[in-house]
Each structure stands twice: as structure tokens, then as C-alpha cells.
């Protein structure tokens, strides 16, 4: 430590190779890439202890009195009976505290999802935040071609773009739906594309038991050997709210649990239609649903990694349409994240939601209104973090790029305030007389390159400069960028033998079944 009355010796500036050296350095210093965010930012609570406790009590009452339906899946009912729950028809009634005990005794507080490239392994839980792209959209849109049904080519493009975008940590799942491939074969092409065109973690198929099995088999080939000690997929199991798990989702969940793969057990609630309209009620219901789903997972395989999910939005009471980016949905993210923290399991929610059809001001506002609560609440796994349009019906190429840029900014927030010596920069004050600018100060020279997040999309130039550059708006700039990223894309290495084996498996499975429409 230098004493306050001492002026530190000025470090001599070194040669950097002049223009050529600097140019090379700037071009190669791409955006800082981290595998996932490790938050130091404290999570914001929207409720006090009494509030959380009340919601937890209400959830237990719902679990016991109303119960949760496990529909069309008798083996789940058997497991519940054995565990001591009361089964009436297909509805399971849980003694108070039962689900919570099962989850807390078995489910890991966090886990590592392994990626093909270990540098892209992600931690899900505790203080981590992982961003994954849009999921499930039947349509895609871009500025050139407008809105259209998505194809396998679009799917691959989105996987490639996600691979190229440093602030997306995870390759996602059904980033868009390849509608041009027969329904019963799509999942093979999707999982293969994630493995082939990216080396980030991915999600498996959930739309049928055998599709989940195929996802596990493909992953076994890709990762080599048994997966019992490695989690390489985190898949999305939605509740059929209110208070119901359906056979399709239970089938897939059971496959993944048995294989020690992670699932997000996710209440998915459009308040008004699928729950009462108030946030406290939605929260109690979602907690009850998530607890019952996660506890089931633990009954299938104690210790299997699960994520507490919540997708909460509201329904326009005037028209019935789903709404996004509303303040109530933001509140729900905070409350649910707090409940998951108290339970001690990883939490999935949020993203960048909007009902807008195009990447316009509505899209940007609504997305930001979801993303900030997501980050401030301390969400661990953020599906739909980039690309979402039209209530999930469409993925926007430009929106993907614009959203990913925002995710970079969130990395800065999540890191919190740098209170190191360098962060405090007291030397800078000591070496700079009052009234003099800091541009030439050593501290500035040492920190300027990474000091401020530099958006690739925002334009901060003068009006004249902007006009000379073609008067482009943000979406048009994003349009240029996704095309450039695709042109520059280079696939990550994949062992030729493994690739051949994957292709064999896909080919074999495809030839075993006729194209089906469902």
C-alpha cells in the first residue's frame, strides 16, 4: 500500500507494436466470454419473512386439500402411494410438508451441466445465472423475409448464432420448431444439430417418452459412455396448470430422472385463466405445483438434478390474449425466486418476453421489463433469454441479436460493484490535480478497454455520422450482425467417429418409423 502522501511511480508505457499491433489486438479482443454469470449482486426480495411464510403455508394447504393431478400416468400414482400420499382417482393429496421434505432431503442445491466443450460447462443453482435462447416458436421472422414457419435450416442458424454469441451460455432446446421435418423425427435433427453445430450445453426433447429416450441415447454417443455421473441435458417439463401434470410430460421427466439428467419442473401460468389473478395466489399455486413435480422427480431417482421453474404471465382480461413484460409478471419472478431460494433448489424463470410481432419499441420495453427482474431476482437458469417475439409464437433473428447484446449488459450488473483497490481507484485521485480530466490518467489507461460495456447494437454517434452510416435503426444494425455472424461461423470440432455414430443413430431411428403427423 502506498501512503497517502506518496505519489506512486508512474509505470513506463511499453511499445505495443504500433498501429499494426494495436489493430490486431483490438480485433481479436472479442467480447469477454464467460461460461455463466457468477453473481455477487444480492438478490432483491419483494416479500418479507411473514409474506414468504404465508405463501408457503398456502401452498401446503393446496397440496393437501386440493391436491395435484398426475394424469394418465399410473406409475406416478403408485410411487406416491408408496411414499405415503393419499391418491384419490388421479389426484394426489400430500400430507403437509411431505413434498418439501422430499425435495430438501434429496435435490441438489446446484449442479453442473456438462457441455461438449468443458469451457462451456455451466453451473445451475446457487449464485449462478445461465442464459439460454428462445424455446418453442413455430414461426421465425427477420427483416428480409418476414414471418414464416420455421424450418430445420432456421433451427441450425439459431444454434450457430447462439454458439457465436458470447453472452448466451447455453444452446437451449427447441429454439424454433423445424416444421419441415415430420413430427416424430424432428427431435432427432434438433438434438443432433445442438451437438454438431455447437459445443454449449443443450436440452432434450420432451414431447414423447421415446423422444426423451432418443435424446439420452444421442447424448450418450456424444459424451461417451454412461451418463449416470454426468448431467449433460436440462430439459423443460411444463405443468399443465392449474395443479396438473400430464402423461406426456411425466413420461419424459421419468426418462430424464432415471438417466440422472436435469429437468426444469415448471409451472406455466397465464394468470386469470390458469390461476387466480393475484400474485400471492399465483405464487402459492406455482409453489405447490413445482414442489409436487420436483418431489416426484426425487421419488423416481433420489438426488437427480431438478430446477424449480416458473413461467408466469397474465392474460388480457379484455381479449384473452397472453400478455408479456407486465409489472405483475415481474413481481411474480421476484416472489418465486425468493421461494426457490428458501427451498434451496436452482430456479428458472424470466427471459426477454414480449407480445410484439416485430423488434420494435414494444418488444424492447417489454423485454427489458422482464430481464431486469430476472437478473435482480437472482434467477439461475434463464430460458427465452434471447429471440422471443409474439408471445413465443415467433423467434426473431434480429431480436436474438438485440437481446443477446442486453444479456452482455446483465453480466455487468450481476457482477456487482468492484470494491477492489483498482475498483476504488484512489491512486487516480492522488495523481490527478483537481479540475483536470481523467483521460490521460494511468488508471484510465489501464482500465478503459473493459471499463464500460460496449454495445454492438446501440448507436451513440452524432446525428450526422448516423445519417452518413445509412440512418439504420437498431433492428437494421442487428440484421447486418446476424448475417455477419453466420458468414463467419465455424463449427466447433466434433470427432469424426462420434459424428458418424450420431448420424447412424439418427438414420436408423428415422428408418424405423414411417413419417408421422403426430
Amino acid at each position, binding site marked *: 500500500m502506498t501512503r497517502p502522501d506518496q505519489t506512486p511511480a508512474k509505470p513506463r508505457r511499453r511499445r505495443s507494436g504500433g498501429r499494426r499491433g494495436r489493430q490486431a489486438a483490438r480485433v481479436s479482443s472479442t467480447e469477454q466470454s464467460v461460461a455463466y454469470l457468477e453473481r455477487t449482486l444480492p438478490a432483491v426480495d419483494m416479500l418479507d419473512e411473514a409474506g414468504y411464510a404465508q405463501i408457503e403455508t398456502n401452498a401446503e394447504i393446496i397440496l393437501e386439500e386440493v391436491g395435484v393431478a398426475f394424469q394418465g400416468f399410473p406409475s406416478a400414482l403408485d410411487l406416491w402411494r408408496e411414499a405415503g400420499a393419499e391418491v384419490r382417482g388421479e389426484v394426489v393429496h400430500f400430507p403437509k410438508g411431505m413434498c418439501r421434505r422430499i425435495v430438501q432431503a434429496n435435490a441438489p442445491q446446484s449442479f453442473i451441466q456438462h457441455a461438449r466443450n468443458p469451457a462451456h460447462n455451466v453451473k445451475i443453482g446457487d449464485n449462478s445465472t445461465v442464459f439460454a435462447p428462445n424455446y418453442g416458436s*413455430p414461426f421465425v421472422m427477420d427483416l428480409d423475409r418476414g414471418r414464416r*414457419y420455421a424450418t430445420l435450416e432456421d433451427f441450425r442458424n439459431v444454434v450457430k448464432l447462439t454458439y457465436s454469441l458470447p453472452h448466451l451460455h447455453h444452446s437451449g432446446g427447441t429454439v424454433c420448431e423445424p416444421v419441415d421435418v415430420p413430427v416424430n423425427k424432428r427431435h432427432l435433427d434438433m438434438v443432433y444439430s445442438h451437438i454438431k453445430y455447437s459445443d454449449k450445453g443443450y436440452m432434450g426433447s420432451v414431447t414423447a417418452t421415446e423422444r426423451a429416450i432418443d435424446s439420452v441415447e444421442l447424448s450418450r454417443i456424444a459424451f461417451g459412455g454412461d451418463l449416470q455421473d454426468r448431467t449433460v441435458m436440462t430439459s423443460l417439463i411444463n405443468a399443465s396448470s392449474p395443479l396438473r401434470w400430464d402423461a406426456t410430460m411425466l413420461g419424459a421427466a421419468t426418462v430424464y430422472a432415471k438417466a440422472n439428467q436435469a429437468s426444469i419442473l415448471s409451472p406455466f401460468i397465464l394468470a386469470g385463466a390458469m390461476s387466480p389473478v393475484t400474485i400471492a395466489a399465483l405464487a402459492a399455486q406455482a409453489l405447490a405445483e413445482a414442489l409436487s413435480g420436483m418431489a416426484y422427480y426425487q421419488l423416481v431417482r433420489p438426488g437427480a438434478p431438478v430446477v424449480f421453474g416458473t413461467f408466469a404471465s397474465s392474460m388480457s382480461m379484455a381479449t*384473452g390474449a397472453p400478455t408479456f413484460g407486465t409489472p405483475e409478471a415481474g413481481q411474480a419472478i421476484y416472489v418465486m425466486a425468493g421461494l426457490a431460494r428458501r427451498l434451496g433448489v436452482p430456479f428458472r424463470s424470466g427471459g426477454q418476453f414480449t407480445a410484439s410481432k416485430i423488434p420494435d419499441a414494444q418488444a424492447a420495453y417489454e423485454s427489458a421489463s422482464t430481464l431486469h427482474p430476472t437478473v435482480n431476482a437472482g434467477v439461475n437458469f434463464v430460458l427465452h433469454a434471447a429471440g422471443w417475439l409474439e408471445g413465443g*409464437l415467433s423467434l426473431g433473428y434480429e431480436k436474438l441479436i438485440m437481446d443477446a447484446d442486453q444479456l452482455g449488459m446483465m453480466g455487468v450488473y450481476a457482477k456487482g460493484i468492484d470494491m477492489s483497490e483498482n475498483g476504488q481507484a484512489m491512486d487516480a485521485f492522488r495523481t490527478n490535480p483537481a479540475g483536470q480530466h481523467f483521460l490521460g490518467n494511468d488508471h484510465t489507461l489501464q482500465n478503459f478497454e473493459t471499463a464500460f460495456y460496449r454495445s454492438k447494437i446501440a448507436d451513440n454517434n452524432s446525428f450526422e455520422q448516423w445519417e452518413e452510416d445509412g440512418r439504420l435503426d437498431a433492428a437494421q444494425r442487428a440484421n447486418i450482425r446476424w448475417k455477419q455472424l453466420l458468414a463467419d461461423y465455424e463449427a466447433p470440432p466434433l470427432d469424426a467417429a462420434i459424428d458418424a455414430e450420431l448420424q447412424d443413430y439418427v438414420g436408423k431411428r428415422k428408418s424405423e418409423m414411417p413419417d408421422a403427423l*403426430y
Partner: protein
Amino acid sequence: MADELSTGAVEDGDEFEDEEVDLTTLDDADLRTQMMDDLYDGLAEEIAEGTKILLSRGWDAEKVLGDVLVEGMRIVGIDFRDGILFVPEVLLSANSMKAGMAILRPLLAETGAEPIGTVVIGTVKGDIHDIGKNLVAMMMEGAGFEVVDLGINTDVDEYIEALEKHKPDILGLSALLTTTMPYMKVVIDTLRERGMRDDYIVLVGGAPLNEEFGEAIGADGYCRDAAIAASMATELIAERRNAA
């Protein structure tokens, strides 16, 4: 406003107080007006009572239906479209309409009057999305249709069984997943194979569909929302009856 406030002309409380109205004391014209208000307010019991009173005064069922209920629901539809009425309110109105229809339907059948129509509707196999389908059923009931709702995850045999049992005018198919949309074609193709396709008007809907998809699978109409579904149903039935 300012005047009203300063003079205290506006009494405290609701301007439209929930007064008890004895429907039997109203003359026909006032009763009709009151019933249209009651439909708007979603008062099922009152609608049932009013329907019975009009019938007891010698109105025939067709007149009660056309002049009072359908007309009342037409206004409900307009205010829903214009964002004045909300979904839960329209649901109550539709239930009131249903209460009236329950009384009128047997009478209409007796007189051989042309019923508004029957709809069999369900979400297709593999799909459990039903919020939209429920809204459609609600609007159809509001328009006076008899609606048979098969629920979710409906396979082609269940549709056909329901068609044979209820002999509806309209078959409505709902799907929200690109993985289940193609099943609509399975249903339509099966109807065709069995020579039943032309017996029904087939309407399809669900967010991931579009006009071209509806055409491609051989549906008679694609409905982008519940209000369109109800109006298209009414129009296509009228067309078909005129053609017959």
C-alpha cells in the same frame, strides 16, 4: 363535473343500483329491455325467468330467441370487441344465454324451427392447450349454439363418435402445437375416407395455424379468434342452409 360536485347533485354510491325488479310487473317492451340488460350483466336466473314469462305471455320460442337473446348477445359481442366488456363478463353473459336456450331448445325442436346450430369442438390428440378452445366454446354458446366440448387430447375416434351421436352442423378443431396441428389433417382425412366429410362444416383454429394451413388440410375455415369463429359458424351455416 365541477358543477355536479359543488352542488352535491351526485349522490354517494352507485348510480346504477342493484334494484330488485319484479320481472312479472313489466310490460313486454320493458321486459325485453330489462332482459337485454340482464344478459349484459350475466344474470342467468333472471334470463331463465324472463324467458318463461315471455313464453307464458304467448311469445313463441323463435321470437324470444331472435328478438331478445340473440339481439342481446349481439350487443355483448360488440362491446367485447370494443374492449368494454371483459372475458369473465362475457362468460357470464354466455352462461345466461345458455340458461335461456335450455328452456327454448325443446320448444324450438317441437315447432320444427331451424335451430341456430350445434358444434362439436375439441383440442386434438397430443395437445392439452385449451384456453383458446374454451373461449371459442364460450363465444359459440353466447351466439346460441349448442356446444359439445370434447375437452383436450381428442383422438379421431372420439370426434367421430361425437359426430354420430350429436349430428352437429360444425366440427371445431383446436391445436396449439406444430406437433399436433397435422393431426387435424388426420381427422379431416378420416372423415373423408368414411364418406362423412361433407356432412359437417369443419372449422380449425389455434395460434400456430394460419389461413394457408387451414386450406391445405381441407378445412372449411380458419378462425383467428373466438369472435371470428362464432361469426364464421353462423355465416357458413346460413350459406349451407340457403344452398340446400
